[in-house]
């Protein structure tokens, strides 16, 4: 397995180099210097700033520098828009906030939608199934934005007006587990509602596929109860697509949700990333992209490994 991981990593090195290169090239279509200068700066100031940002170095040197800092985990370049703060610090600060939002959302969504999907799949074709599928489709057909705008207005503001005391925070963020529910629960719930439609449908499809398998009949012929069939035979098999789906979403946990973060004032990664792109903060964008791409590739490898753990038929080679 170790050899497998190493080989996979080596295989993905060109991908990785290409990602970093691509992002650097795309970013360098723009000139960040002017935006970072103060009022009344002249051409000399411009040149000095450019020098200071290291943008006048040959492209390959910049590329090499970035790669070196990534491979040595030295994320100590200063953010351009927030001087005095290194990129690493920014990531360390922002990522946990995104995680505090996305991880519970993922866990809740996955748990709820797997259970709903199972109920739906087992009642396939009945009214309950049709209702659940319809609700899922209904939920998927409304824009994320609308959920947020209305969720914030009704869920936070109107609800607290109605109850006469705050239930969910309208906006804002405090670290710490104690504050989590107050600040994060509403955005998490919105995010759960948004993604539940997709997940339920996907998991239902997986489950339906599994219910049609012969081994299910075999198990029932052996006298297994519904519960045993559902939770032992089916779930174990369905774990493979479920894990794939969850693993694929894992890297996205760190990017957070731009819209939710923006509306609820959670300064997570989505928020930081968007403002970094808007303000041409190259070090932040580049480093974050590199980290994300790394996570993405690792998650692909991890998916393979989990595959092998859950499915005895799969061998890592």
């Amino acid at each position: 397995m170790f050899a497998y991981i190493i080989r996979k990593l080596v295989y993905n090195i060109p991908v990785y180099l290409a990602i970093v290169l691509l992002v650097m090239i795309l970013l360098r279509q723009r000139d960040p210097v002017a935006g970072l200068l103060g009022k009344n700066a002249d051409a000399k100031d411009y040149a000095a700033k450019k020098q200071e940002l290291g943008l006048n170095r040959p492209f390959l040197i910049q590329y090499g520098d970035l790669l070196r800092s990534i491979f040595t985990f030295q994320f100590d370049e200063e953010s351009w828009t927030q001087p005095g703060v290194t990129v690493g610090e920014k990531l360390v600060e922002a990522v946990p906030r995104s995680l505090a939002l996305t991880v519970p959302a993922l866990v809740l969504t996955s748990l709820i939608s797997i259970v709903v999907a199972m109920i739906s799949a087992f009642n396939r074709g009945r009214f309950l199934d049709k209702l659940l599928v319809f609700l899922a489709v209904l939920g998927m057909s409304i824009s994320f934005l609308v959920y947020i705008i209305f969720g914030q207005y009704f869920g936070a503001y109107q609800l607290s007006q109605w109850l006469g005391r705050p239930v969910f925070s309208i906006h804002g963020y405090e670290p710490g587990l104690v504050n989590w529910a107050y600040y994060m629960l509403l955005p998490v719930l919105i995010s759960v509602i948004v993604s539940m439609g997709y997940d339920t449908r996907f998991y239902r499809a997986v489950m339906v596929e599994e219910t049609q398998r012969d081994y299910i009949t075999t198990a029932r012929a052996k006298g297994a109860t519904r519960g045993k069939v559902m939770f032992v035979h089916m779930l174990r098999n369905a774990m493979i697509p479920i894990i794939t789906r969850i693993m694929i979403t894992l890297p996205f946990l760190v990017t957070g949700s731009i819209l939710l973060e923006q509306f609820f004032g959670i300064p997570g990664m989505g928020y930081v990333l968007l403002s970094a792109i808007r303000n041409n903060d190259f070090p932040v964008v580049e480093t974050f992209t590199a980290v994300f791409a790394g996570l993405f590739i690792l998650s692909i490898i991890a998916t393979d490994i989990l595959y092998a753990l859950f499915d005895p038929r799969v061998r890592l080679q």
Partner: protein
Amino acid sequence: MSMTDRFFKTREFRKLFRNKSAVIAMLVIAAYLFTALFVMCGGITRETCDTVVGQNKMPGFFIQQTPEQRYENATSKFLPMVQRALSRADQTAALADVRLGQERVVNKSAAQLQAIIDRAIELKNELNQSEDLDADSARLPQLKALEDQVAMLKAPLTGWSRLMQNASLVLGTDAQGRSIFLRGLYSIKIAIQIGLVTAAFCVLLGALLGAAAGYFGGWVDHGIVWVYTTFSSIPNLVLLVVLSYAFTDSEVKDTLLPVYIAFGATFWIGTCRVIRGETLKLKRMEYIQAAQTAGFSPFYILVRHVIPNTAHLMLINFSLLLIGAIKSEVILSFLGFGVKGQPSWGIMIRDAGNNGDVVSGFFWEIGTATALMFALVLAFNILSDALQDAFDPKHV
């Protein structure tokens, strides 16, 4: 019997047409397509959407406006305009400048006009003394008088133009006084356009690359997998935003091309994966192997045997991508990277959000955009469900 005929008369298609909700969904989609076509043929132009048809944030369904709003309409928009016209040296020319369509002002002498306006201003000042018009029923007759004064300057609409006026006001107006209904309808075209173009492009590209990767294997496969791993390893946001920046200064920035490219760069990956998997499966099928043994060229086999047999997946992916594109457009436009220079549902929702519509309880704009989008996406969702049911029963 042609290929397409055969395709459409298969058992799967018959099954599709037996599904009642799918048929309803198709009818809904047809209605949208028809509207889009109507818009595209010049039924509603960008200019129409940008025309001010009434006062700001008017509720729809001809709901009685509050006296406050009527007052605003009568005074803040119209009086200053006419006043300004009167203060000009060249009066007839100035009066012609007065907007709001078919005003009668031109036919009135300056003295007459001045009298009307003076009377109106007088009334206005009296009204200004009241606290809140809603609560002040005694002032309502005065408001009526003011409106009459203002109305004397405007000719009533008749016939077609009246019908159009009514139609454009049916769902109210936005913060700039533009018709929400017309903007909503125009957005159908944008949505359909973005959806169709993106989905068609991505499905074709994804299918070709996926089939090639799956069929040829080896370095072709490695290459294509590398490319899509690269694209999917860059956070979508970074890619979309950076790409859309690339166009800010170019010739195409007001068209939908940047949106297409931003979507096109990422959306093909899913299709490519699916088709690649299916091709790997097909490759092991006897008839493909038979064709290979028979010595047909790989390209011929790919085009003749492999790709047609993934048609159902392409169809399903097409409808899924379409939904994805329509929904992503909304988010992209909200963040300011999407559609520019013309209305779209995303822009309408964004405007509604930015204009504080929800907070102040004005749901017409956001409601219209959401409802129109909802119906279309729901129809496509139901259709794609039905498609999957019919063509790919394993993935219900």
